[in-house]
Structure formats: structure tokens, C-alpha cells
């Protein structure tokens, strides 16, 4: 029952700047595998966020644009409107997408822009050193919520998949994670589905992936996986929230 495994073509050989055990790396690989399998590398344009994944383009082997913080969906809109033949995806963190970029992602989804968003939710601002995000859990300590997120002042964490799924415009919205191999496989299938809807020019598609930030959570990579399962997945329920009918 053995299998072989090798690095996808869409992924470069570059050594990543990510911290040990950061799941950004897994998610990069899944995107690359999907692009290989769909054979669209030649006409794909990725958009890197401002966040730990800002250097994502160093790890992929196709055209890339680097966005301003939160604006990737507007850039993707610009590309798809003038070049509908290109396959476009944004790769965004939770601060990027759910805080400063909230308007851009909702409007793009609501206009039904035909691109794909890979939304990496690690419940914190990783790159800047662990500040509170709109997705930070109640009582979770971060450098800007040193006494724990106080829901009286900061409100409850925003669940983007649920929020976007309420829009009337057809779209594909689902939430996955990569903390165990079985989840990794499901996450990849979802990403493939999302890209396929784009290929068919069907609708906007977004896959939220509940991810980890061992460094800013102050945990070992494996502790981070367990905390994700226990705390994050209890609030961020996995599943398909919307499919275009």
C-alpha cells in the first residue's frame, strides 16, 4: 500500500522563511498540487497578502502580484475583469482579510468576481508579532490583548465563512483545516473544487483554512495543532457553507 511523494512543480525549491511547524507551508503545498493537477500553472496569477505569507511568491513558480494589506481581492477583481482567461487566487491571512480588508473581500464576493481566495485563519496577526485579530478567540492573550480578548470591548470573533455565505450572490464557501493528515486531504479537495468553479467561470470561491501560529501562540508546533483542534475548531466549524446552485 506504499505511495510515492514529491514536491509539486508549482512549488519552488526555495527554503521558506516560515517558523518551524507553521502550517502556512502545508497550505502552500496544497495550492501548488491543485495547480499542477489542473494544469493551469501557465495562466495562473497568485496574489500575495501582507502578512507572513507576503513572500509566498518566492515559493511558487508562476506569475504573482504582491498586494497591499487587505487589498488582494480588489487586485484580483482588476485582473479578472480585464483578463477573464487568467486563473487568479488571493492568499490572505485573517488580519489581512477579516480586519483591514473586510470590505474588499465582501464586495468582491458579492459582485461574484470569478477568482479564488485561500483564507488562512490563524486567529492572530503573525507577521507583526502576535497582535489581536478579529478572529482571535475570547480571552485569548495577544500582545494587544495582554489580559485576554475582552468580548465586551472587542466583540466576538468574526466567522468569515458564515458571513460570506449569507450573501445572495452565488459562490463557493467552505472551511477546512490542516492539523491532521485527513484534514489536509479534505482541505486540498476543497481548494481544488474552488479552483474548478473558477475554471468553469461559475462563481467566486473561498476556502477558509484554520491554521496555526506556534510562534505567537507561544506553543510548540504539536501543541499548536492540539489547541487548534480543541479551541478553534469548536468555534470555527468545518464544512461547506455555500455552493453555487
Amino acid at each position, binding site marked *: 500500500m506504499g505511495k510515492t511523494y514529491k514536491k509539486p512543480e508549482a512549488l519552488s525549491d526555495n527554503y521558506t522563511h516560515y517558523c518551524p511547524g507553521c502550517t502556512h507551508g502545508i497550505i502552500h503545498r496544497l495550492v501548488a498540487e491543485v495547480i499542477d493537477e489542473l494544469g493551469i500553472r501557465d495562466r495562473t496569477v497568485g496574489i500575495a497578502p501582507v502578512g507572513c505569507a507576503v513572500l509566498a511568491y518566492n515559493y511558487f513558480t508562476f506569475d*504573482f502580484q504582491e498586494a497591499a494589506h487587505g487589498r488582494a481581492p480588489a487586485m484580483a477583481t482588476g485582473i479578472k475583469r480585464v483578463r477573464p482567461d487568467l486563473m487568479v487566487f488571493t492568499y490572505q491571512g485573517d488580519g489581512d482579510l477579516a480586519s483591514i480588508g473586510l470590505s*474588499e473581500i465582501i464586495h468582491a464576493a458579492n459582485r461574484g468576481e470569478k477568482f479564488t481566495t485561500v483564507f488562512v485563519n490563524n486567529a492572530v496577526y503573525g507577521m507583526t508579532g502576535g497582535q489581536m485579530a478579529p478572529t482571535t478567540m475570547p480571552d485569548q492573550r495577544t500582545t494587544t490583548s495582554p489580559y485576554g480578548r475582552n468580548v465586551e470591548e472587542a466583540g466576538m470573533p468574526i466567522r468569515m465563512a458564515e458571513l460570506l455565505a449569507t450573501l445572495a450572490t452565488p459562490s463557493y464557501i467552505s472551511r477546512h483545516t490542516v492539523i491532521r493528515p485527513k484534514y489536509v486531504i479534505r482541505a486540498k479537495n476543497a481548494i481544488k473544487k474552488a479552483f474548478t468553479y473558477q475554471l468553469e467561470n461559475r462563481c467566486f470561491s473561498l476556502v477558509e483554512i484554520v491554521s496555526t501560529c506556534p510562534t505567537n501562540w507561544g506553543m510548540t508546533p504539536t501543541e499548536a495543532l492540539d489547541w487548534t483542534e480543541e479551541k478553534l475548531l469548536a468555534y470555527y466549524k468545518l464544512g461547506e457553507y455555500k455552493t453555487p446552485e
Partner: protein
Amino acid sequence: MAKVLMKGNEAIGEAAIRAGCLNYFAYPITPQTEVAEYLARRLPEVGGVFLQGESEVAVSYMLFGASACGARVLTTSSSPGISLMSEGLSYMTAAQCPVVLVNIMRGGPGLGGILPSQGDYFQATKGGGHGDYRLLVMAPASVQEAVEMVMQAFSLAEKYRNPVMILGDGLIGQMMEPVEFPDEYKAEPSNKDAWATNGMGTRKSRTRNLVKTLYLDPDELNNHNLLLKSKYDRMKQEEVRFDTYNADSDYQVLIVSYGTMSRVCITAIDNLKAAGLEVGMLRPQTLFPFPEKGVHAAASKKSCKIVISVEMSMGQMVEDVERSVKGQRPVEWYGKCGGDVPTPEEIMDVVRAKLKQSS
């Protein structure tokens, strides 16, 4: 093509189409919304892209995305809308995106008013966003000139891979004047395969393109800035444009003025000439690069006693005039902002008064 009577805003929209730009992203704002309304009708007719963005912030990044994959794009807005594009302008310039923007200025600061103004000179010429960058800025004084500048803007933007801004005031947008479109003219989109993210597969060299603005290594970032600077220096060499009026007379006063304001000055100059006072004018057509040498030379003319920068603002271009004159002559400013454009009579009084003081 025959002359047609057209509103500035509509003529600007048509000019873009004639220049081969079929992609327009914008958010409505007075006094330039007619551009959007015109293109919302026209672009579908020519198979172009019209998109009303959700905000000027979003629009600036739609421009980024579209132009970074090689498309010609236009946006138009007015003062507060341009402020919201400040970050985007810094990014687009850093990423060397050849976009064209039109700012039909209204009274500021804040919500201000919707009448004509020239209060965004600093923002346009010194860069409203962060970091070292410049826009190539052109200022039309008539609807016809607006059309011509818009059409040239696209080739200039591509020549320098730098955003170009047309800076007009509310009157340029709202006035109707006869315009002629060089109907054959249609700039050929330059080949952008060297840098555009238009899909690896479509390019000979099947290497990937990357459009970015982050340079974590200080030397790389410094070199990137030196590259940008070299483009601005080249603009200063090759793109400076200005016009003069009554400049061969032995003018005692030199007026520096642009846009609609300069037309009012022309009437004032004619009247003053009739009344026996010679006044010359230099009208910058490019605000960046600013005609420094031209202004210096014009100010240095023997007969010239004083230089007055006349603007619909509280004194912005006057700083560039001062820099250019280098102390050769006293430099004065006259301006007003709020939308009530100074009249020829007003200018005449100012010229007489300031000339009296200076002597």
C-alpha cells in the same frame, strides 16, 4: 473628425477610448461623475470594462491589479477620492504600474465644497502617499487640451511605467467646449511581456513575472529607489512642458498660473495691456516635472520686477515658483479657494497692487 461640443468630463471619457483604453474603474464623486456615467454607456458599446468599485481605496487596487497584468486602465475622481488612493498611488508607483488617473479638483480640505479648486497641487506633485515617488502630472486649461493630455497620458505612463495624473479643476470637467478627436490616433499597447503578470504561458520566455513592492534588503530597496529616481530625472529632461502668453513683451510682472486660472489671467493680461501695463504669463502644462528653468528664465528677464503665482489655492505652486526663481525676483502669491474663481478684474487689481508694493 469634426468639432463636437462636449462637456469636459464626457470628452475625457471619450479620449480614453480613443487612446485604446477600454478599462475603467471608478467610484462616483462630484464634479466628475459624468465621466463614469458617460463610460457606463459607452464602454459596453465598444466591448470594454466598466466597473464601479465599492470605494476609491478598492478602485486604486483594481487599477493596480489590471495594469500589472498589462491592461490600459483609467480612473477618474475628485479630491477626497484621490486622498483615499494615496496608499495605492505609492504602491502603484513602486510597482511601476502604468495607470492614468484624472483628478477633477474640488474645494477642500475635508468635504470642502464641489466647486472648482486647485488645492491638490501638493498632493499631486509631491506625492500624497508615503515614500519617495512622483506622478507625472499634467494640467489642462481647456476641454480640447484635456482630451489631448488624456490621450498622451497612456503612452507616457507606459514609456515610464509610472502613473500619470491629469489634474483639472471642476470647470474643466463641467464646461462644454468644442473638441476635435484625432480619430485615427490610437496608441498601440506596448509589449509588456517583460514584466506583466499576464500568464507565463503567453510569453516567449516562459519565466514567471512578479510585480511587487517589498524589498526587505536595504540595498535592494535603495537601488529600487534609485531606479525610480532615474525615471523622475529623465522626466525632468524630456517631459517638461509649458506655454507662455505675452512673453515677448517687456513685461514688468510675470504671472505663473495653470488650468482654468490661467485663462482668467489671459483676459486680465489683455485688459492690462490695453491699459498700458505689460504682464507676461508662464503656464506650466506639466506640474511635475515643473518647468523650473523656464520659470527661472522668464523671471530673470530684465523688465520683470516681480513674479506672482496665481492659483486657486492658499499657496502651493508658489513654493515651486520660489525654488525656480532662486531669489532673482520677489515672488508673490495670490489665490482663493472655495470655488469662487477669481475674476479678471480681481487679478488686474492684484497685479497693480503687488507691483506698486514691490517698487
